């Protein structure tokens, strides 16, 4: 029974990691990464390493998505500003 749990958790981690690689859009990828973090924490618990699971939960479920989304937002904003600056320069004298 213990082996069954480990196999199930490993399979879930494999599927989640594959999905995280397959998704191209960073925003959607951050959602998949959050799920991957939670599933990894379950895997660590099943492997009797709850301390690793605790830090994985702290980092994976809230911090990684937050950093990714903030980066995407900043990059988008900068891109928009550069676009506006370029068009304003083209319209000017």
């Amino acid at each position, binding site marked *: 029974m213990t082996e069954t749990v480990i196999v*199930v958790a490993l399979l879930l981690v494999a599927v989640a990691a594959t999905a995280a690689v397959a998704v191209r859009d960073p*925003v959607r990828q951050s959602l998949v990464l959050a799920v991957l973090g939670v599933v990894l924490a*379950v895997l660590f*618990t099943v492997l009797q390493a709850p301390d690793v699971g605790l830090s994985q939960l702290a980092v994976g479920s*809230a911090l990684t998505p937050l950093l990714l989304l903030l980066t995407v937002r900043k990059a988008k904003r900068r891109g928009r500003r550069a676009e506006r600056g370029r068009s304003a320069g083209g319209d000017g004298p």
Partner: protein
Amino acid sequence: MNGWILAAVLVLVTGVGATLWGVAGGPLRRRATAQNLCTALACPVLLLLAQGYGRPAYVDLALVLAVLGPVGTLVFARLLADELADDPPHARGPTWTAAALGAAVVGAVAVATGPGRALVKLLVIGVLLVGGNLIASRALAGGMQEGRGD
């Protein structure tokens, strides 16, 4: 090994597996809902595993997830508010199903624990789990837009 771990495997395969399938494809609203449900379902799994392995210390993992899961969902609800505003995700059925499952698991583990400080801790986790996820899914559905100054 015992019924607790069997129940954990069942919830892991059906619940977390389904949310994994939901987060891997489809529109953004479906993915955000699936991410919220994933934390709501993984927390009961951790509680069941702690009971199944007979190690009360493992309950701390469920406590951390019950606190941080809704925080993560609120991060998404806040930073994806513009994308989600067009068609907000209303997932009443799955949300209440996950909340009922969490309450049932907390109740079962509480009965097995018996009275004491551990029981109070378990009930704190249960309140955080159910309340946090209901608040998070409400925020995801756009129910808390009034105070947003962006």
